[in-house]
Every structure is written in structure tokens, then in C-alpha cells.
């Protein structure tokens, strides 16, 4: 195994690291014996968590003073690299803030970034895997110049597995002077309500799309999700139409889900939706268009009207 370090952006969320961050720390252990996590906020309190998943060092950027993380966190990482500690690669979760950090870091260091990776192996050098054209092709790529290369990795590409390691050594990594680039400030957070399990964690996900016809029909999706103890999701089309909040969106720019079963209702199966759910163990699709691409990946496809099939399904589930 290579001893050149791998760094992982470990995003803090609700008193822990995001699941994707832990997936990347776990996977980094298979690529290097030296894994460091980079975090911010109250970073020091995560030394045990970082160590438990295999990081030996935890770089703490500290409090961001309400700034969006992209600029200060990228500056802190760039500072560490410029002071001589260059890792082999920096792995970054494909989240809103992660993508900001990746772009800023790439431009600051003048280093390339490979995005939407779903795999990363060591094959005489790091090789990334990227599904393209709706997942029909897999592109393998590598960095061809001086590192560190920056890799943005999609959620659920790897398993999050504790290694039982000792708490990581915390090293403070302040961002330094930032100037005008750091002027974007968070004035308020708005959390959109939900009942039931989180979309990414749910064993059953019921999603609705444009085929529902109108916003009121989404109530059927929520009712079904409730009856199946699952979470309600949505395609980008109805999120953009303002029917449901962004936090429900499954797909390229939304959440990646891998439930035991995914029920796609009135969703045709656009590429950008499929990449967010095709890893589901089982897929059931209901759509009135027999040629909808979603049927190509569905284990059970029902060619029919969601306004007939879903009410009948709700009745049957209620009667159980």
C-alpha cells in the first residue's frame, strides 16, 4: 500500500460527519496507510470519530464565522499543501459544499479535478470510475500531471466501515487571509420539515414525477411512503416546478439513494434521475408510457395510470 497520504474532506453535519464523508475516509484506508480528514466548525470534538473510521490526522480549519465553507476550507487545504504536506489526492463528497471546496481548491492550486466518481482504485496510480450516458458506459480516468489530484465522489459509492482506530491527532489548519472571495455569508438556515426516515437512510423510497400531473397528487406518494415506513422522494421535474422541496430530490443534483426497494411513480427515467437511484436493490416503476426508460431498469414495471394504480395500492396496504 502506498504511504503517500490521502486527504478526505469530512463535512460536519448535526454533530457528526456526513455519511458520505465516512464512506470516503473508510475507502481511503484501502489506498493509503496515511489517511487525514479535513473538517471545520468544532472540529476537535470529531477526533474520536475520525480515528474510528481510520483517519490518523484531523486537520481542523476552525470556526468559519458564518462564511460558506468553499473559500476558507479550500484556502486552508491549499495552505497545508503549499507548506509541503502535499497528499496524493484529496477526496471530496459530491455535496453542495463539497463541490464548492473542490472548485476553489482546484483553481487555487492549479490542479485538475475529476467529478462524479463512483469508484476509485489503485492500479499503478489512482484510477477513478465515472458512469456516463445514463450509466450505460463506465469511463475510467486518471490524473496525468503533478498532484494532488482532486476527486469529487458521489454518495454511496463505498461502504462506511469503522476500523476501530485510535482518536486522530488534531492539527489546526487556519485558512489565512482570504479577502473579497470570502464575502458570502450565511444569514439564516431554513430546514424543511419531513416525517419518517431520512431519504438516504430509508429502506423504502417512494418517488413521484411529472406523471402525477398536478401538485395535489403528491399526497399519494407521501401516503404510500408512510404506509411502507419509507421516505418520499421526487424527480427534478416536480422539484423545479415547485411542488416539493429540494431536499426530496433524487438524482444527479439531488440525493443518491440505495434502498431495498424504490418505487418510481410517474417518473420516465431521465439520466439525471437514474444515476441517483439505479443502485437500489429492487426497483418498481409505474408509468403510463410503455417506452419510458425507467422500465429498462425496473424489476417490476406496471404500464398504467398512477391515478388508478396508486389509490388501489394504498387501499390494499391499508387493509393489511
Amino acid at each position, binding site marked *: 500500500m502506498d504511504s503517500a497520504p490521502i486527504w478526505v474532506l469530512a463535512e460536519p453535519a448535526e454533530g457528526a460527519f456526513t455519511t458520505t464523508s465516512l464512506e470516503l475516509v473508510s475507502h481511503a484506508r484501502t489506498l493509503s496507510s496515511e489517511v487525514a480528514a479535513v473538517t471545520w466548525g468544532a472540529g476537535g470534538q470529531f477526533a474520536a470519530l475520525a480515528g474510528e473510521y481510520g483517519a490518523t490526522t484531523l486537520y481542523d480549519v476552525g470556526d468559519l464565522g458564518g462564511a460558506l465553507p468553499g*473559500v476558507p476550507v479550500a484556502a486552508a487545504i491549499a495552505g497545508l499543501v503549499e507548506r509541503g504536506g502535499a497528499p496524493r489526492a484529496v477526496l471530496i463528497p459530491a455535496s453542495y459544499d463539497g463541490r464548492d471546496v473542490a*472548485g476553489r481548491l482546484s483553481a487555487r492550486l492549479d490542479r485538475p479535478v475529476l467529478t462524479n466518481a463512483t469508484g476509485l482504485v489503485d492500479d499503478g496510480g489512482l484510477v477513478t470510475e465515472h458512469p456516463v450516458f445514463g450509466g450505460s458506459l463506465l469511463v*475510467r480516468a486518471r490524473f496525468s500531471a503533478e498532484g494532488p489530484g482532486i476527486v469529487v465522489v458521489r454518495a454511496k459509492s463505498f461502504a462506511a466501515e469503522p476500523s476501530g482506530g485510535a482518536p486522530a491527532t488534531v492539527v489546526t489548519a487556519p485558512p489565512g487571509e482570504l479577502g473579497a472571495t470570502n464575502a458570502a455569508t450565511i444569514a439564516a438556515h431554513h430546514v424543511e420539515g419531513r416525517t419518517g426516515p431520512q431519504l438516504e437512510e430509508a429502506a423504502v423510497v417512494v418517488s413521484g414525477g411529472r406523471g402525477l400531473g398536478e401538485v395535489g397528487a403528491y399526497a399519494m406518494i407521501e401516503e404510500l411512503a408512510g404506509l411502507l415506513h419509507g421516505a418520499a422522494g421526487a424527480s427534478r421535474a416536480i422539484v423545479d416546478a415547485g411542488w416539493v422541496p429540494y*431536499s426530496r430530490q433524487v438524482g444527479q443534483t439531488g440525493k443518491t439513494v440505495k434502498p431495498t426497494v424504490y418505487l418510481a411513480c410517474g417518473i420516465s427515467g431521465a439520466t439525471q434521475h437514474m444515476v441517483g437511484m439505479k443502485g437500489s436493490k429492487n426497483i418498481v416503476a409505474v408509468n403510463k408510457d410503455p417506452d419510458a426508460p425507467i422500465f429498462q431498469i425496473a424489476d417490476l414495471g406496471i404500464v*398504467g395510470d398512477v391515478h388508478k394504480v396508486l389509490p388501489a395500492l394504498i387501499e390494499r396496504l391499508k387493509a393489511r
Partner: protein
Amino acid sequence: MDIVVCVKQIPDPAAPQSFDGSNNLDRSGKLILDEADTYGVEMALQLVDAAGGGEVSVVSMGSATDVAGVRSALAMGAARATVVSDESLRGSDALTTAKVLAAAIARHPFDLVLAATESSDGYTGTMPVQLAELLGLASITFAKSVAVEGSTLRVQRQTELGYDEVTAPLPALVSVTAGVVEPRYASFKGIMAAKSKPLDVLGVADLGLAGPVGAAGAREAVVAIDAAEARQAGEKHVDEGDGAERIVAFLESIKVL
């Protein structure tokens, strides 16, 4: 208020996609304005209207022989366009694209730069933030609402849990989602007017860029392209009143029920 919108001409996403001999996306067919960019153009037009004056310009890197896509942004109402086109740019990665656009944008004063969160063909999604860093600008990505009050930008930015209210002073860069505004359709008058609006074509030499561009400047290489493990389609039934029953039976078979 002067706003620059980054736009991209892409192969029609509804047509089958393929790679060319250099493992780049085949762009030899007809190109159209990326639908994802129409939201930024519309947002810019509305913000300039609200500010009571100013100009919307669009900037693009790519073909200068087929500029129908850029003209559609002009037909929506943008005042002028700059297209950076150069054979040497073929195969450019996202960072090189950002360097090229930064150099083109920096030639004129501006208050705000808008871009889509990601293009609909490459999906890289890092270019806007790279561009902001190169231009020395603050950035707010994934905007679902944008307003300008005086010289302050107010943006609702998507988050995993909902959204954040984020502010920044101008000048700045904002990447907008498809939910930010409803793009207008170009009117016949707009389409006719677009034909005579200024469209400057620049080459790499006009921008004074340091370092190689295009495939020579890209620092990523494709190792292989293979068919992905296909997920097999299962059963498909036309609903004859038994659809719900079949779903229940399936859920029982996988022990979800």
C-alpha cells in the same frame, strides 16, 4: 447593473450521445443552447430590469461556426455575446474552460456573473466556482432565488436539509438551479433582433493566457471506456386493474411486506 451569463452550446441531449476518436463527447452534430443556461439568462434579464438599467451579455467557449445556441440567448434579450473559439481549445478540461472564460469576462467591467450549476452534457459542475476563484469573486452556488438590494446580493441557496439565506456584496458570481426563474420563450421580434446584435469571436491569442489549453493543457486522461454492468429489466405488465396486486405480491416476495 451589468451582468455576464456563462452559456454553453451542447449537442441535443435528446439525441444519442457518443465519444469521438479522442474520447471527447462527439460535438460534430447540431448544437443548441444548454437548457440549463436559459435560467441564468432569464434571471439576468429580470435583475437588470429590476435595477432599472444595465446590460446582459453572454460569454461562451466553443464553436464559432454554429452559434445558433448563443443567438437564442440574444433572442431572449441579452444585448451582446462573446464566443471564444479556437481549434487549440478542443479537449479543454473544466479548469482550462474557467481560465478562458475568466480572461474573456475580465475584459469588461461587470457587477455579477451568472452560470448554471452544471452543464447538461459534461455534468462536471466545478467550472462556476473555479471561475469565481480566478476572477477573485465571492460565489454563491445552487441558488433557488436571487435578488439584489443596492449593492448586496441575497440568495436562497439549496442545502441538504432545505436552504440557506446567503448574502454577498457585488461583484460576485452566482450559480443558479433550474428552479430559480421560468425562462421566457424568445419572441419573433427577439429572434429577428438577435440576428443583428453584436457577437464577438475571440481566439486564444486575444486572451493572453499563460500555459497550454485544450487537450494539451488537460491533466486528466481517459484510461478506458467500457459498457457498464447493465441492470436487467424485469417483468413488465400492462395494468388491467391488477397493477396494485402485482406490486403487493412483489413487495411480499422481497420481504418488504
